[in-house]
């Protein structure tokens, strides 16, 4: 346990070998992770919990930490050595509890160049527990920590009031810590500039614009130079031979390869399991997943996101949120599932509902965005701009409405801003790989299943029945061909596949724009739905679903009229 952003998850990962997402901002970990480690002959369970400043929780993530405290036998209290004073408050609270503690004094390497000197022996003596200096990122001190876990002690610490605790901490700090003055480093000048209105605004625009162009550049390069050549030159000939072998038509042929047009495999439109089923996830979506998470990972690890939260705070208040809600929102541009989990860093139920609803409606995930770039982008960049512009306007307007309608008020921003850190490439690549791997094992099977289901439903004519049934809304209100409804149905499974289904329908650019927007808004994909339900409950899910469907129909209808 420990304060937010002190490196608990890094230490956990070092102890257990379990890979967890780590970043440089408070609130990266919002639920607990279990892992196992060898302690001598024994195998023991280790639990990574969200950070908390005190044992009086102020948000869902902190509640989780407190719950887990009751299940543990020993606490490894991770303390930020560069912020000893503030961190010791939780340490004292833990010592007052009936549970043995060992302290890991993390970020120890930073104390030297920050001019902080800590008398370890004195600190051990005053706290009455073992204190091990560690540098979790490099692994320094982890071995000593493991060797000392069994020495965790339960010193006799009186239960104090808040002010008594602070007084005790004051006297501990006087005895163990000595700080020498030193000048600002260039990173610290940059830290200050990032939260000032003018320079901060310029930095934010530069960062976001570069982020966008890097994602585009990396994504498009991967598609043009790696995945397209692979599919066109290596995979297409294999599929054509297989097509001949299967006789060019028939049930297995249609399911595996789909429609062959003009003696060539059209990877986007054929919709076979081995054609589109592989091309969509690997050659259209994966490149953008890699590109997006590379950039997001860098922003997270450098420590930029909390600063963006400060700059955006005023805007976010209009939407019934505060600045820190920018973090779930940005995560949502990757995948809505972690985004909805990340709303746990927000203090009130109201904020969580608004944030989760806005993310589900107006924040398209990377997979869907990749398809928007791939399909809508073909018709011209201006159409992509219309799709994004519409979603952004919806995000703002819906936020303003929800802020008016949902009862209660939203608390103010109060966050710790971490120092900028230059992340080692290894940690950036590791996190990128974890997230990419997550896409490969969790999303790709669903994509394949979706393609299979689509083919079967087509063959049995079920889609036709649904299409006829919903035709008045889809054609009347949205101006889409009635077949487009099948895409909306599939959108509940996977939105990337669903948008892909619009490809063979020979839509006009306008119809494609309407289709993309409605698909993005009308309902979350199944994975997001489940998390939303679990995190916010049935009632909120129903309310949110009502908002989603009406907002999607209204927006789609308006677009159909004005474009």
């Amino acid at each position, binding site marked *: 346990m420990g304060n937010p952003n002190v490196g608990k998850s890094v230490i956990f990962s070092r102890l257990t070998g379990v890979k967890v997402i780590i970043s440089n901002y408070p609130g990266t970990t919002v639920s607990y992770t279990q892992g196992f480690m060898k302690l001598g002959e024994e195998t023991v369970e280790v639990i990574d919990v969200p950070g908390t*400043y*005190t044992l*009086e929780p*102020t948000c869902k993530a902190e509640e989780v930490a407190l719950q887990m405290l009751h299940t543990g036998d020993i606490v490894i209290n991770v303390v930020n050595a*560069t*912020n000893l*004073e*503030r961190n010791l*408050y939780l340490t004292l609270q833990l010592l007052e509890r009936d549970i043995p503690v060992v302290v890991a004094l993390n970020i120890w390497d930073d104390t030297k160049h*920050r001019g*902080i000197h800590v008398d370890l022996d004195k600190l051990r003596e005053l706290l009455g527990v073992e204190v091990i200096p560690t540098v979790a990122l490099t692994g320094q001190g982890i071995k000593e920590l493991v060797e000392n876990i069994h020495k965790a002690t339960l010193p006799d610490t009186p239960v104090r009031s*808040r002010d008594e605790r*602070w007084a005790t901490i004051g006297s501990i700090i006087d005895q163990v810590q000595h700080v020498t003055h030193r000048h600002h480093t260039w990173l610290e000048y940059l*830290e*200050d500039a990032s*939260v*000032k*209105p003018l320079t*901060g605004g310029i930095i934010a625009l530069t960062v976001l614009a570069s982020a966008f162009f890097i994602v585009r550049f990396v994504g498009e390069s991967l598609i043009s130079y790696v995945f397209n050549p692979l599919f066109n030159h290596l995979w297409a000939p294999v599929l054509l031979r297989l097509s001949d072998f299967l006789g060019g038509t028939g049930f297995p042929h249609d399911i595996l390869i789909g429609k062959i047009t003009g003696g060539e495999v059209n990877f986007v439109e054929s919709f076979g399991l081995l054609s589109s089923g592989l091309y969509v996830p690997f050659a259209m979506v994966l490149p953008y997943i890699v590109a997006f998470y590379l950039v997001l990972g860098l922003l997270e690890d450098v420590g930029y996101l*909390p600063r963006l*939260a*400060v*700059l955006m*705070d*005023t805007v976010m208040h209009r939407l019934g949120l*505060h*600045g820190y809600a920018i973090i779930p929102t940005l995560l949502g541009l990757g995948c809505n599932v972690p985004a909805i989990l990340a709303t746990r860093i927000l203090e009130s139920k109201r904020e969580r509902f608004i944030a989760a609803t806005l993310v589900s409606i107006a924040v398209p995930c990377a997979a869907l965005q990749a398809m928007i770039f791939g399909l809508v982008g073909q018709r011209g960049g201006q159409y992509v701009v219309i799709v994004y512009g519409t979603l952004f306007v919806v995000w703002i307007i819906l936020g303003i409405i929800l802020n008016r309608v949902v009862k209660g008020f939203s*608390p*103010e*921003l*109060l*966050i*710790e*801003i971490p*120092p900028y850190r230059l992340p080692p490439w290894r940690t950036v690549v590791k996190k990128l790989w974890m997230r990419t791997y997550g896409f490969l094992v969790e999303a790709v099977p669903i994509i394949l299943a979706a393609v299979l289901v689509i083919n079967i439903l087509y063959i049995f004519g079920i889609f036709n029945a649904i299409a006829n049934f919903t035709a008045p809304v889809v054609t009347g209100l949205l101006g889409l061909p009635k077949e487009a409804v099948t895409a909306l149905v599939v959108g509940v499974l996977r939105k990337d596949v669903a948008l892909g289904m619009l490809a063979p329908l020979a839509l006009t650019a306008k119809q494609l724009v309407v289709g993309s927007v409605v698909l993005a808004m009308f309902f979350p994909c199944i994975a997001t739905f489940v998390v939303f339900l679990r995190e916010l409950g049935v009632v909120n899910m129903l309310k949110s679903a009502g908002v989603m469907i009406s907002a999607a129909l209204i927006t789609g209808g308006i677009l159909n009229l004005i474009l």
Partner: protein
Amino acid sequence: MSDGNQITLARMQTGQSGKVVQIQGGGGLVNRLNALGIRPSKRVTKVSSMFMRGPVTIQVDRTQVAVGLGMAKKIIVELA
């Protein structure tokens, strides 16, 4: 001793520093601010404030903390 040197955090100029003397708020607010190192006798420096009633960023010890304007109005600082 409410001399002219005491103002709220919200009204401090960027770059000014001073000592926190009082937090005018309930136990919950005091707890949360304390946990972030903002409590009486602590020296704070204002790093920035955002226009349009945005949050105030301050430096306390070796951390920067962003505080909503409403809270910043409840933190009384003695300039020094």
